[in-house]
């Protein structure tokens, strides 16, 4: 026992002292934190986009202006909702559409449920000024006032030398240098890059598509022409076409003698949906955000397990191979038994793995406690939900089980090889096997008791991953007990077998054994 502890301690210290260990430990949280900051930086950093609108038909200029304004208001609304979530007195994940208790929460929830309707309401009520007044009683006292984002899409005038009455082809030819950034458009005293040209030809109404009409021949520019090099930012064309369509439909309604006010009201009618959980206690069946998180949490656990296991077995393998190629193993075996050596290694590397996970969690907590915003507050609450759920014991069990199982196999591999290169060839199938449940994890969460998933859960190498994956969905007791028994039995078998291979393998030199030789090793009396 003493020897196991001594070996474990040395293995642990050896790993913890390497730079690679700390790089792995630090890089994951750094990537997450970096991604978080990068994302918020990017969303705030989108520059103003300048566009030119030429409406030769003279019908839709207003509609486009409305569309742009609406897009701008939508952005203000979103920012304001974020601001609300960040600064309201109490954020509550148990909140559902039905139990929103105040106007601020109601707004947050409305945006969540149907942004278009919420936006209409927002504009109708008078936009930001009204919202600020409405929400202020529910906000904390010590907060900064809301800062309205600047408009993102700004209309600019046509350059003086381009005639708005020319044919579309001529206009496009004249503006092409601006659209391709060869020339900058003048913005009063400054100049900037032209993002898009929206060209509405004179006879646009002839292009309106109606049900049953023949599709247009390909290659003809029909309808509104949106000229821009950026193909990914589709907010501007989307908003414009939405708005123009609304305009067209409205005039169609008018032509048909339908009251447009009525239509709009009908369009804004909606049926809420309540998600209910039949397994919850009476009165608590309402599915909250927290419940949804709990259902998805296993994905995180499975992923954490995968990363940590991969790291551990890597260490196990390289340490064993170092000892083998250095022949230290011979001295060790003259001092301790092969079993003690193996157990010491398993325990030591396992501790290193726990250190990794522990450090990750710790840095995570430090991050969210130091840096608190709407998102991190959400994360805090998600964590609370997860820590409070029964998922933790599952994770601890499957983590250790997975570790014991996989490390047993990898230790045997390590004992048979003299170089990492040799080991890699034997390792590959083991890694591929682990990738299967990882690739499945999103599907498993959605359909945890699917027959294929249930069947695969019985394969011991998949059990830790798949059963962890299914944990939140209360898998059938038969599956839980059965796979656990099978898992524990195979752990014992694998450790016993790899103990044998280890004893025989550590003193081997030369090529890794072929299958026949491996069988001989296993059947040899140690």
């Amino acid at each position, binding site marked *: 026992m003493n020897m196991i502890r001594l070996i474990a301690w040395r293995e642990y210290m050896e790993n913890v002292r390497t730079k690679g260990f700390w790089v792995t430990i630090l890089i994951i949280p750094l990537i997450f934190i970096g991604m978080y900051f990068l994302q918020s930086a990017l969303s705030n950093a989108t520059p103003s986009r300048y566009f030119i609108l030429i409406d030769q038909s003279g019908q839709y200029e207003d509609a486009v202006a409305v569309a742009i304004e609406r897009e701008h208001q939508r952005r203000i609304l979103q920012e304001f909702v974020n601001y609300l979530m960040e600064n309201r007195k109490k954020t509550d994940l148990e909140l559902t559409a039905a139990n929103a208790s105040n106007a601020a929460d109601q707004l947050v929830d409305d945006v969540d449920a149907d942004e278009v309707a919420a936006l209409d309401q927002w504009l109708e009520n008078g936009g930001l000024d009204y919202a600020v007044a409405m929400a202020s009683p529910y906000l904390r006292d010590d907060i900064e006032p809301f800062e309205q984002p600047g408009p993102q899409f700004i209309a600019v005038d046509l350059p003086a030398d381009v005639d708005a009455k020319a044919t579309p082809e001529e206009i496009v030819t004249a503006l092409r240098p601006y659209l391709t950034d060869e020339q900058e458009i003048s913005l009063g005293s400054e100049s900037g890059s032209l993002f898009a040209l929206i060209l509405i030809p004179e006879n646009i109404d002839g292009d309106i598509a109606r049900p049953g009409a023949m599709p247009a021949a390909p290659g003809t520019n029909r309808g509104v022409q949106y000229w821009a090099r950026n193909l990914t930012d589709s907010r501007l064309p989307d908003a414009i076409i939405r708005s123009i369509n609304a305009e067209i439909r409205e005039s169609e309604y008018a032509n048909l003698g339908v009251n447009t006010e009525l239509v709009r009201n009908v369009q804004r009618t909606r049926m809420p949906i309540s998600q209910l959980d039949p397994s919850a206690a009476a009165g608590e069946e309402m599915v909250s955000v927290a419940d949804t998180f709990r259902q998805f949490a296993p994905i995180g656990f499975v992923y954490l397990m995968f990363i940590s296991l991969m790291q551990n077995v890597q260490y196990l393998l390289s340490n064993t191979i170092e000892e083998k190629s250095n*022949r230290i193993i*011979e*001295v060790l*075996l*003259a001092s301790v038994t092969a079993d003690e050596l193996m157990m010491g290694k398993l325990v030591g590397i396992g501790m290193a793995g726990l250190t990794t996970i522990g450090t990750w969690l710790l840095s995570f907590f430090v991050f969210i406690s130091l840096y608190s915003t709407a998102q991190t507050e959400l994360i805090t609450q998600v964590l609370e939900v997860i820590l409070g759920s029964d998922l933790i014991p599952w994770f601890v069990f499957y983590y250790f089980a997975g570790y014991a199982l996989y490390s047993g196999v990898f230790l045997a591999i390590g004992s048979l090889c003299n170089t990492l290169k040799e080991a890699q060839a034997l390792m590959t199938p083991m890694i591929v096997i682990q990738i299967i449940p990882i690739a499945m994890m999103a599907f498993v969460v959605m359909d945890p008791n699917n027959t294929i998933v249930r069947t695969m859960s019985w394969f011991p190498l998949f059990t830790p991953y798949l059963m962890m994956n299914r944990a939140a969905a209360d898998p059938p007791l038969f599956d839980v007990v059965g796979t656990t028994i099978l898992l524990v039995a195979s752990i014992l078998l694998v450790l016993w077998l790899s103990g044998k291979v280890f004893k025989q393998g550590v*003193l081997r030199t030369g090529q890794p054994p072929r299958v026949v030789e491996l069988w001989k090793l296993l059947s040899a009396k140690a």
Partner: protein
Amino acid sequence: MNEPVLNLTHIVKNFGQFRAVDDVSLSIPRGSIYGFLGPNGAGKTTTIRMILEIIKPSSGSISVLSTDSALKVRNRIGYLPEEKGLYKKMKVWAVIQYFAMLKGMDKQTAKTRAWELLEKYGLKDFGEAKVESLSKGMGQKVQVLAAVAHEPELVILDEPFSGLDPVNQTVLEELIKDMADNGQTIIFSTHVMQHAERLCDHILLISGGKKIFDGTLTEAKAGIPRRVILETSGDTQTIEQLDGVISVKPAEQNSAQDAATEWLVEIGEDVNPQDVLRHCFEAGISLNRFEFSEPSLHDVFVHLVGDEAREHSAR
């Protein structure tokens, strides 16, 4: 005191079809310095591994420190394997401490002992260095120290001198003598005869897995003819007729064209070399050199296993 430290009885080890060790029996007295000598591939390392129970013999029995298994007494044994290696990332003193602790020493004693050894054998300045920064020879010295730090009763060193420069070979010889003075029993294997000659009181000669000889150094030397070297341009034929002279042959280093000037005279065990000298005077053979020396262990080795060793290396 009289009980042997180690007893091998008819030890055989087969690796598949290959017989690495063939019926070796051996008894090693307490407090001796015992040399395992033999050409490469003779079975020295295999024998040592069996003694330590790292591998098991195919047949035969081994008793170590009065037990049937080295594992039971492994804390009283120190072992330096043939192929040397240490944890590269560890500090020198920590490696010695670690291996001593694996042999049951407590942490503090092991640390004190590690520094003590480093100081005594000239490595104090490297104590805080990492193993990977040491030269090969220094690393090997550290490994020897790590193997014996727990003051084992039985020390087994497999090729301890290989890779060491002459100065460090001397340091290692001193270490071995120190341990012997301390009452520890030392077994070491080598194919360099000078070390064995200077250190050993007993030797085992092994070749092709078979024991050729075991016994004291004196016994080993007694087994081969004594030699006189003559350097002369005169006629040496008459010497051959002398009583007790076994053969007269030109020494090997003579070039083929020149008439031989150096001769090797083998004489019987009870012959006084002075008789040969006297005969030379009487017969008027003028001598440039007359040399008589006791046979060296090298001679013993070549005499006993020479042909076989050549055969092995030719294979």
